[in-house]
């Protein structure tokens, strides 16, 4: 099997995708991802010179704007109904600036 990714790479991807992984999970994930990436190799073996990509099955769509008329959206209460933590009508997160820590 080709080593596409090292454990160091996998730790970097985990950090980027904001997924915590234990040391054992990094080992297992590295093996899994290398095996999956190996199985993708056929995609690298086609002669694709001059073939345009198709990014979407419906190709001839263009973006349209709806008429600028007032329409009800979520109320503040509805928007917050699934928030794990909220306060004073806002989503609550740990402090991200300076001192003070979590409220």
């Amino acid at each position, binding site marked *: 099997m080709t080593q596409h990714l090292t454990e160091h790479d*996998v730790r970097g991807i985990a950090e980027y995708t904001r997924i915590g*992984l234990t040391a054992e999970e990094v080992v297992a994930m590295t093996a899994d991802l290398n095996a999956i990436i190996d199985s993708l190799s056929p*995609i690298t073996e086609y002669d694709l010179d001059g073939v345009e990509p198709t990014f979407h099955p419906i190709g001839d769509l263009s973006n349209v704007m709806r008429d600028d008329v007032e329409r009800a959206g979520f109320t503040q209460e509805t928007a917050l109904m699934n928030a794990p933590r909220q306060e004073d009508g806002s989503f609550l997160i740990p402090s991200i600036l300076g001192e003070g820590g979590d409220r």
Partner: protein
Amino acid sequence: MAATFGEMSVRQIQAGLAAREFSAAEVARATLERIGAADEAVHAFLQVTEDLALAAASRVDAAAAEGRLAELGPLAGVPVGYKDNMNLTGTRTTCSSNMLRDYVSPYTATCVQRTLDAGALPIGKLNMDEFAFGSSTETSAFGPTRNPWDLGRVPGGSSGGSAAAVAAGLVPVTLGSDTGGSIRQPGSFCGIVAVKPTYGVVSRYGVVAFGSSLDQVGPFARSVEDAALALNAIAGRDELDCTSQPCDVDFTANLAEGAAGLRVGVVPAFMEAAGLTAEVRAKVEEAASALEAAGAVLVDVELPHAQAAMSAYYVLGPCEAFSNLARFDSVRYGYCDPGHADLGSQYEASRERGFGPEARRRIMLGSYLLSAGVYDTYYYPAQQVRTLITRDYLDAFEKVDVILAPVAPRTAFKFGEIGDPTEMYLSDMFTISINIAGNGGMSMPVGLGADTGMPVGVQLIAPPFRDANMLRAAAALEQVFGPAPVAPAFADGKAGE
């Protein structure tokens, strides 16, 4: 015991309502009772929506009392279940993930709303592979669904609950979603009619996104007509999903036409594919002969790039999933790991504990494949391959009206039989190229495999927006093989004993 409402067809329920043999409230209550008795063995339902079903039933009964039953729509009084990635206001929509364990829908998906507008009784939410990542429903955070034909086997996936509920005769109609085979493969494993329409036929608004250029919603039922009636209810343009297209087709219109003159493509390379079991191959050949005997013309067609679909899909799917699952931030909704003093560690712990292993794998794979340098090796070529696969289908459909193929290479496997992710991915080897090209495909049951005795479905593939072609061919097969039976252990009101 008499046939339960879940074993009746849509038309039978509506005839009974029209003749006042029973009320919609009785349908709802009996269906809820039936699920209570039989679903312990199957575990198709994650949630039963009793209050919503009874409220919808009273609206149907009020209309019936005023003689307005016919005005209600194609699903009037019909119990319908929904895959748990479909929002329905006031219900939990979990995607079978700990990430959304407590998520309550603040709005209703268009496909669900359209069944309600058509008079359906919303009976509950159905189990699935976590975020639809899987082919067995074993990755559900809430435990697997069991195949009603053999409780030791998987129902397929990802829409395993949707398929099993219909196969066990708990409800006549359910909705599922299909990104690489997630409607058709469980439809085949559970022996029922399962339709993935052309991309753009059904709005995905309010359905939790997996692969946005691949996802499509469709119905499960035990007859072609019931599936067509459900498709009539949910199809068509929705201004909330810009990929949805206008659709004024009555999908029941040509079901009685038979197969005479129908040009049916057969792909020799599919029939010779490594991994295709003898019993499935025999059933596809039997279906081809049946169509030919009914007057269809069999034509060999080539799909030379279809074998590239697998690797293209496992590039495109994770890339789109990585992007779609970035929204789970533990702040606005979803699981939030408690007690973190900084946002970064809250993100990481919440996504670590909220997502299961397959979701984490696909997110990380997608991130890698889209990274600088790697993008040109996999993602861009995958989109070029998509062009070739799409052309293959368009060329084939110059010669034929519909293509006949296997759905899955084998019948339903036993729990735990397939542990390796890349081996599991092979479940979708015959279904994936259809999502890549965007055209319609469906699974039509044609009896039981000679070796395993488990249901086998054949796949009918239609040109883009000509989904009526495959429904017509399916109806012709139904003439020969009969409508899908309820799994024997659940027939006549039995509960899996």
